[in-house]
């Protein structure tokens, strides 16, 4: 297929899936089966697109002179599309297992918005300019809201308020201004290698403009705009898994990275020092979120704060403004995606199989759920950056980027962060395998097979990605 057709395919498959969900709403097996099937197709399409050379572009409409809705897959976007496209079918399969296992209601509505959210994510990944990205960014926010508030009770609605409030407000107040500002200054919004602001803006304003993006992209959960992420954990676990570990937050940091690389330009940021402040903010976010994570005993809350911390890495990769750090950040989108989705899958599996959410109640569960816990351990190691797991490479590259720029403190931050990860993720594994349970557990009691398969695959991906890393390193020049 040509690149153009692949773009249509990737954007269209989730929409088709969402439509079919409605069509087959009275046939649960058909409804769910088609989503998995289309998901697998999308994974294939994403992979094919990833391997195609860059250069294709697809313009839907011109809003105003020079302002279009355009899709232009470039390496970074293709990588993100690949991540989202690959994890979608797995997450869908998992969702089926979870929703049936946990006996959640409103399955059709859930599946519908799930697919729409993937569509929005694909739109973000493939967007060719900031405007397109913004449109799909907002679409993602709104399409995930019904998922976050799926339970519909008081707590869910309250969390939904925080979710929508922070994401919408930050994007409207800061991000949109940034978008318009860039357009007014540069006359274009197209993602261009080397950036579009060089020579068009007084360097004095660069930090402020960057701030509009860093804090405008609430999905990147840079502290102190992170509150929506833990709040969104009221959602059923499949939502947390795909959306809040992968699609939504990754869309956020992806946007930050893309803006840094293709709007500001790495060299321009480095020259002007416009991103220096962001290095410190990201450092703070990385460490503070980890420390908060240690104080959480609810598994999903802990994972959520861990995500906040990990997102800091990717923002850091942007802020360091070196090609190596940017490559590391891009890789981390994939590496952390595979790792974190596994962790959330496991959290859901634990919930479905044993109805436990508090880490202190999970003593000895590892012996009962060996597959789940092994996957969890692998993913946790990947997040920590231990070889031979995917997270190691991205962390290496970020460290290299920090060294390139002489940010020794950042090196320290990354190191300490690894140790903090170890403390709060390691505890779960150790409790699972070695602590004595309060009540005796009998034999092996794993979650349904539909949940075990995806989490095993994603855990394996964490491992495989380490060895296949050369395929996923994006060269940002320099």
């Amino acid at each position, binding site marked *: 297929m040509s690149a153009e057709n692949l773009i249509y395919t990737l954007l269209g498959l989730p929409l088709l899936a969402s439509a079919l969900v409605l069509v087959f709403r009275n046939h649960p097996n058909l409804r769910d089966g088609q989503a998995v099937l289309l998901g697998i197709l999308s994974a294939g399409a994403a992979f094919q697109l990833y391997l195609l050379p860059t250069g294709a572009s697809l313009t839907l409409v011109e809003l105003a002179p020079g302002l279009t809705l355009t899709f232009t897959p470039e390496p970074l976007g293709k990588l993100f599309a690949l991540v989202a496209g690959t994890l979608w079918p797995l997450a869908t399969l998992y969702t089926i297992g979870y929703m049936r296992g946990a006996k959640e209601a409103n399955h059709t509505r859930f599946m519908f918005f799930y697919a729409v959210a993937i569509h929005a994510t694909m739109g973000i990944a493939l967007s060719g300019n900031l405007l397109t990205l913004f449109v799909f960014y907002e679409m993602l926010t709104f399409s995930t809201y019904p998922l976050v508030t799926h339970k519909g009770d008081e707590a869910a609605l309250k969390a939904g308020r925080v979710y929508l409030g922070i994401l919408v407000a930050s994007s409207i107040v800061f991000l949109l201004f940034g978008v318009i500002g860039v357009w007014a200054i540069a006359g274009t919004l197209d993602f261009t290698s080397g950036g579009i602001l060089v020579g068009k803006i007084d360097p004095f304003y660069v930090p402020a403009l960057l701030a509009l993006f860093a804090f405008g992209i609430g999905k990147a959960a840079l502290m102190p705009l992170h509150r929506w992420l833990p709040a969104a954990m009221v959602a059923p676990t499949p939502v947390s898994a795909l959306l809040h570990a992968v699609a939504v937050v990754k869309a956020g940091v992806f946007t930050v990275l893309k803006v840094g690389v293709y709007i500001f330009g790495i060299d321009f940021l480095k020259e002007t020092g416009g991103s220096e402040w962001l290095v410190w903010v990201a450092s703070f976010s990385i460490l503070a979120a980890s420390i908060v994570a240690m104080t959480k005993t609810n598994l999903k809350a802990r994972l959520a704060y861990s995500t906040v911390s990990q997102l800091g890495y990717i923002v850091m990769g942007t802020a360091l403004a070196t090609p190596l750090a940017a490559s590391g950040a891009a890789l981390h989108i994939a590496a952390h995606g595979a790792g974190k989705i596994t962790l959330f899958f496991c959290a859901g599996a634990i919930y479905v199989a044993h109805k436990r959410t508090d880490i202190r109640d999970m003593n000895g569960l590892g012996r009962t759920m060996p597959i789940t816990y092994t996957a969890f351990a692998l993913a946790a190691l990947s997040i920590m950056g*231990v070889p031979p797991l995917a997270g190691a490479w991205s962390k*290496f590259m970020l460290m*290299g980027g920090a060294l390139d720029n002489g940010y020794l403190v950042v090196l320290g931050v990354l190191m300490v962060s690894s140790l903090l990860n170890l403390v709060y993720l390691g505890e779960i594994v*150790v409790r699972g395998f070695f602590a004595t349970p309060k009540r005796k557990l009998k034999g092996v009691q794993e979650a349904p097979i539909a949940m075990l398969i995806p989490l095993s695959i994603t855990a394996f991906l964490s491992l495989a990605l380490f060895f296949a*890393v*050369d395929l996923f390193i994006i060269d940002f020049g320099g």
Partner: protein
Amino acid sequence: MLEMLLSIPGLLLIVGALLVPVLPHAPRQAYMLALIGVSGYLTFGIETGVHTTASLGGLDLILVRAEAMTKPFALVFHIAAALNVFYALHDPNKTTSAAGLAYAGAAIAALFAGDFLTLFLYWELTAITSVFLVLAGTSARTMNAAMRYLLMQVGSGVVLLAGAGLLWRDGTGLTIQAVDALTPAGLCLLLAFGIKAAFPLVNGWLQDAYPEASVTGTVMLSAFTTKLAIYMLALCFAGFTPLIYIGAVMAVLPVFFAAVENDLRRVLAYSLNNQLGFMVIGIGVGTQLALNGTVAHAFASTIYQGLLFMALGAVLHRTGTAKASQLGALAKSMPLTAIFCTVGALSIISFPLFSGFVTKSLTLGAVAKEGYFFVWLAMVFVTVGAVQHIFVKAVYLPFFGPAPKRVKAKEAPLGMLLAMGAAAALCLGIGVYPEPLYALLPYDARYEVWKAGYVLGELQLLFFAGLGFVFLSLRGVYPTAMDTTVLNTDYLFRRTLPRATMAIAGPVLRVWFVVLAALKRSVLQMLKISEQASRESGLVSGIASIGSAAGIFLAMFALMLILRQVM
């Protein structure tokens, strides 16, 4: 794939360990021994030089490279691994077996790593596999101790990675070679190795975690991690003088701590620490003789230290305790164990004809030759210390001393006896006929230990130290061990660090909440003002009177005129 498996030393054990949990007990032990045998055979044939390289992530990695020093370490690691299998014959714990095997494999692979990134991989792998051994312990504190252990081990790896990164930035490349310690990269690497070698201030994990592990776990732990660190220090920092003093401190200090400690496995952990100090001194001296001494000492101490851990482990296994205060007169019920243990003790106090004597003397001689008097004196002092806390406290009293209460015990299981017997034989063998070991050493430098004067001095030292014990015990002032918590450097992150974190985080959080509250207040205030102002009678939106409208008109008219004039 298979070729790769066989060409990278240790990988066979790591990958092979994956099968261990699924095998039934007896075949499992045989399988593990076979793997170790094959691995040892393959490894021993590796000549000095670079053998296997790979490229990944844009980096050129050296997967297999042997140095002159590699072979003795690889050999003793294999020996230790094999002994561990025997020792654990009675123990059906699959996790410990698999983790132990992989741990040994990782340590062996790390010896052959040619660049710091490859090393980092195995470095972390040793950390992660070994923590399973700690976790196999059964006491209530095991889990926390294991977490602290893992934190230090992984922390060491992280610092190693940072050092590697700094080296890479400096353009020196990632190849493992001599490093200038006084650069940021060098300091990082020194710290990374130092943590695993239990340097002073970062030694806490060793005494903290090793005694918490299971009987078999502790034995496995004692062999690899610290020796690997010594090996790396020797490769990168040979001749870095400050190491001499670091080594001296780490040799001397544990002597006093070991004297207070009641848990005998912890006493052994302290003694392990001061043995490592000897090796670090050797590295710091850095002459060929000193390095030979370090390597030889590492070789011998791995075995005798293992033997001691095995023997006291056997005691723990049979009696359920390893507390000095609760043990005595065990020689009657566990005679073989007592004999083997005594051999280990004689080795560690470097009694002539035992392995410690022929290896430690190399380092001692090198130090003396270079004229470091006080360091030399410290080493002699530590030998007396070993007499006190190993020979007297850990071996003599439990096995031959008075029984505080009736201790009933059976002789150790066969597997343990086999392992201990083999280790004891090696101790004695090396002590009597050290030539094969000397032949393995990296350099040709020799030191004649069998000189009558030298042997005499050593014997005087040991016997009069023994008399010291007799003197004190006759006077009734030889201290009785009691259960206490001995503060160690792990205090730093068990107490100091949490306190410091709270001290910082507390005010930060308070400020943050104050800011948040202020923001919230000001927003509410603003809304209140605008609500008042936009009421029908309010300032900005009310139905203004005609008069006020005229006023505004006039004001604006005036304003325009003024602006016209001013601007």
